[in-house]
């Protein structure tokens, strides 16, 4: 038994490095997605202290809008910007109808409000697009679907092109976001708002402008996630659950840390895949991916409540 846990998995890894590489790659791809979703949470939490329960359904809603528009005869490359417009309108509506009237209410009320948004979007989405599964318009968007085959160490490594596109796309999106947050005036205002609400108000930063902006960014992220995940698993309301995978990422990375969300996402993606293949399947009959991340997060919470990379609370002594 001990041999099974502590020795054999590592022997397997070393004896078939090409397979190990394949596993890590698969993990990395899902990790990138977890990181993206977690980023959506972090941005909204930082700027408004709202834990946005609706992030998952926004992924579904964005993907459904994109596919739905295409089904109704809008060319794919036009459907993409149109979906962005829809996400912007959604951000504006949420700010106006939900956030503005609830400003200054306790956090838990705002959290409940995001659950309300979730339920509304589920119903609204089904009303417009119907409840059946759809296929993501991968080819129409110009995402390549072939695959590259490598033979490292005489083994076999298959990289799907759409996975490569997803990883590159996610990296570009994240870099653009970091650049925006750190270099632009609006990005600075978002970070300022995260630090001190009152002070941000006092220098004339308008809450509603910033809120619409962060919810729109969350919408863009949702769309990107929806495209990638939809290409792998189809577009349905079941997609919503991958947002819950972002929860352990947030516990690991901390609710307020952009880099934490990225590193946490990648870590969980890779670790859960490795665990599944080398420990879960031989020892527990598989399907460990559904719970591994949560157990890992639990252990992190025991030892570091602010998460591994939670923003250090600056306190002068």
């Amino acid at each position, binding site marked *: 038994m001990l041999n099974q846990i502590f020795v054999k998995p590592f022997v397997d890894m070393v004896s078939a490095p090409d397979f190990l590489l394949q596993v890590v790659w698969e993990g990395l791809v899902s990790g990138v997605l977890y990181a993206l979703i977690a980023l959506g949470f972090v941005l909204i939490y930082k700027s408004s202290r709202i834990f946005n329960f609706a992030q998952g359904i926004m992924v579904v809603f964005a993907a459904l809008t994109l596919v739905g528009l295409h089904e109704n005869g809008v060319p794919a490359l036009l459907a993409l910007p149109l979906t962005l417009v829809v996400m912007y309108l959604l951000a504006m509506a949420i700010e106006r109808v939900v956030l503005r009237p609830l400003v200054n209410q306790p956090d838990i009320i705002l959290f409940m409000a995001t659950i309300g948004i979730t339920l509304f979007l589920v119903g609204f989405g089904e009303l417009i697009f119907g409840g059946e599964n759809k296929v993501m318009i991968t080819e129409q968007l110009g995402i390549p679907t072939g695959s590259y085959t490598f033979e490292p160490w005489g083994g076999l490594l298959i990289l799907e092109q759409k996975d490569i596109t997803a990883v590159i796309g996610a990296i570009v999106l994240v870099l653009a976001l970091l650049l925006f947050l750190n270099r632009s005036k609006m990005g*600075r205002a978002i970070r300022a708002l995260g630090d001190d609400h009152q002070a941000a108000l006092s220098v004339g930063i308008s809450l509603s402008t910033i809120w619409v902006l962060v919810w729109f960014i969350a919408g863009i992220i949702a769309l990107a996630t929806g495209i990638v995940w939809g290409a792998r698993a189809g577009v349905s309301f079941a997609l919503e659950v991958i947002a819950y995978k972002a929860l352990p990422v947030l516990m690991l990375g901390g609710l307020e840390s952009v880099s934490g969300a990225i590193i946490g996402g990648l870590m969980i993606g890779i670790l859960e895949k490795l665990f599944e293949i080398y420990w879960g399947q031989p020892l527990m009959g598989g399907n460990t991916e559904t719970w591994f991340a949560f157990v890992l997060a639990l252990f992190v919470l025991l030892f570091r409540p602010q998460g591994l990379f939670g923003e250090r609370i600056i306190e002068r002594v």
Partner: protein
Amino acid sequence: MNAPVTAQPGGEPIKGDVDAILTVNNIEVIYNHVILVLKGISINVPRGGIVAILGANGAGKTTTLKAISNLLRAERGEVTKGNIVFNGQEVQSLSPNDLVRLGCIQVMEGRHCFGHLTIEENLMTGAYTRRDGRGAVSADLDLVYDYFPRLKERRRSQAGYTSGGEQQMCAIGRALMSRPTMILLDEPSMGLAPQLVEEIFQIVADLNAKEGVSILLAEQNTNVALKYATYGYILESGRVVMDGSAVELRENEDVKEFYLGVGGEGRKSFRDVKHYKRRKRWLT
């Protein structure tokens, strides 16, 4: 109301004591719909002047400033009576953001710097409402660094890790970046060493003289405040109990006793000595 007036932003001659940049007319403020905090306060700030609001904790100084800058609403407070006019415009219908755009900005009590942003980023957030281009903003950044050379040394450090004095300078500098015509300065001396307080007040006086910024100051440190201000109001539990030029107030026996810590014993507030009638300034 004949406070001496020092300068005016436009450089035009001052028409006399009628030219007020800010008038607060008998305002009443209620928090949470039930707690009456201000019970009729009237204040007048001449263009280019430094006016001080004095009083103990809970007298209503901060609330008065927040009523003017409209930050009150974010704390569930409300102006229920009276009105406030800044530069000829009623402020009640404006958002804090509009007011900053119009040139009235508040430096909050307790400094409130953005802890995770660097000093320079903090200063730049002050320029959020400006639309006059990068050149003008960076010129003003240099101006702020001229007034506060210490900030220039610390420009790359996170504000959360700087000293209390530096944070206070950062907060004032940040307000300055919005090109204000009026700064509402809440308790700048809080928690600072006496020589630092003097240094900061000296800079504020400089700003007033050279940049023509009008200043409404809330202070507990009566001594320093009356040294730099031209006119003062004394608040006690939400009412103006006394007002007068800084010289008058400094010489007043009661003020000396209660706020400057000189003179007799036993009497601790105006309530115990005589009844000052609230002046119905809005009628005159």
